[in-house]
C-alpha cells in the first residue's frame, strides 16, 4: 500500500443506499432538507413507490454492488398510502434481516426504519445513526462482486 492509497483509505467515506418510500420517508427526507437539518452526506436515495415494493433481494444486490450500508425506510404501520403495503413489507424484512445475519452479514450493514412525512428530524437522526454504525464497520468486503 503506497502513501497515496493509505491517505485515500483514511478519507474514504462510506456509501449508503437508502430505499425510501415515496409517501412518507421520501417526504421526510424532503422536510429534513427544507428545515435545513444537518446530516451526513453519505446516503444516496432511491425512491420506491412503497416499502412493500421493495424486493428484499435489492438489499443483497446493493451490497453486491459494493455499498457499505443499506437503509430501507417506509411509513409507520397503519399509515401506508396503500393501506397494508408496509405490513407485508415488515414480514419480508424480518425474514431477510434474519437470513442476512444468519449467513454472516454484519447486523449494522442493513437497517430498517419507519419515518413519516412529518419526521424530518427523525430522518436526520436515522441517517446519522446509520452512517455512524456503518463507519464503525469499515468498508464492506463480503458479497462485493470483484471483476
Amino acid at each position, binding site marked *: 500500500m503506497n502513501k497515496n492509497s493509505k491517505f485515500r483509505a483514511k478519507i474514504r467515506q462510506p456509501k449508503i443506499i437508502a430505499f425510501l418510500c415515496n409517501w412518507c420517508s421520501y417526504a421526510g427526507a424532503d422536510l429534513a432538507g427544507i428545515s435545513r437539518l444537518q446530516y451526513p452526506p453519505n446516503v444516496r436515495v432511491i425512491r420506491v413507490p412503497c416499502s412493500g415494493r421493495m424486493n428484499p433481494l435489492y438489499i443483497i444486490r446493493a451490497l453486491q454492488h459494493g455499498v457499505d450500508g443499506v437503509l430501507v425506510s417506509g411509513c409507520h404501520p397503519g399509515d401506508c398510502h396503500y393501506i*397494508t403495503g408496509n405490513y407485508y413489507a415488515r414480514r419480508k424484512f424480518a*425474514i431477510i434481516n*434474519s437470513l442476512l445475519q444468519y*449467513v*454472516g452479514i454484519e447486523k449494522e450493514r442493513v437497517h*430498517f426504519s419507519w419515518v413519516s412525512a412529518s419526521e424530518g428530524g427523525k430522518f436526520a437522526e436515522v441517517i446519522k*445513526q446509520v452512517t455512524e454504525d456503518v463507519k464503525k464497520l469499515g468498508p464492506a468486503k463480503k458479497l462485493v462482486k470483484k*471483476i
Partner: protein
Amino acid sequence: MKTKKIQDIARKLLKEKKVDVVIGFEKGTLPSSATPCFIRNPDEVDRLIWNSFCGNNLANYLPKRKDKIGIVAKGCDSRSIVVLIQENQIKREQLYIIGIPCDGMTDKNNVLHDYCLICEHKNPVIYDVLVGEKVKENKAQRHPEGLRDTKWQKIEDFEKKSSSDKWKYLESELSKCIRCNACRNACPTCYCKECFIDQEKPRWVGTTNNLSDIIFFHLGRIFHQAGRCTDCGACVRACPMNIDLRQFTQKITKDGETLFDYETGLDIDVKPPFATFKEDDSEDFIK
C-alpha cells in the same frame, strides 16, 4: 405389500377413468434406486413399486397440469401438494392422492437421510386413500418457549457463531456450486415460468460463476422458500456437488415457525406467512 396395494389402487383408478395418469415410482436403472414414472395405461401398473429409495418429491410434476392426476405422496410430498394448492398451481379436484405413511427414505448405502431423521410429518397431511397403517409421528421435544429442541439444533449452533465464521462457512460451501440450477429444478415449489435469475429485461442478477453471483442466487432462492419449504430434501439430493443447502433453507423454515407461527403445508385454508400479516408482528429490528 405397499407396492401391491399401490398397483391395485392405480389399476382401479385408471380402469374407471377417474384419473388420466398416475405418478409414482418404478425401478431405477441402477440398483438401489427408484425413478419417478407416469402410468397412463392400466396394463402398465405393474411397473409401480414402493421401497425406501422413493425419495423424490413427486409434487414437482404437478404445477400447471390440466389433466386428472393420481399421485403417490409421502408426508413431505403431501405438504408440498398443499403448498401448490394454496398457490393455485393445481386444483384439489384434479388430484387423487394416494397417501403413504413413510418411515424415512434412505440413500444408496441404505442410510437414512438426515432430514428424515427429524421429520415430524411422516403421515400425509392430505390424501384420498391411505396405503397401510399410519406410523407414529416423531414429535421433537419442545422448549417451554415453543422452540423445538432437537429439530433446530444444527441451526441454533450455527446462529451462535461469529459473523465471520458464518460467512466463511457459507463461502466454503457455495464455492463448490457450479450453477447447474439442479436445486431449483428439483424443488417442487420452484415453478416460476421465469425465475429471477433468468430475467433479462433488465438482467439484474449475475449468472456467472463468480462467488458473489453464486451467493446472490442461493440467498435469493432460499429467501423465496420462506414459508414454502417443507424440508423434503429435494435440493440436497439433486445437488451434484453435495452442498449443505439445508443449513440455510432450514433457517427460513425456522423463522417462519418462530416469527409467524406458521408451519408449511399443513392446512390449505391457513394463509402462508407472506400472504397475510398481523398488526402486532414483531418489529424490534426496525428503528
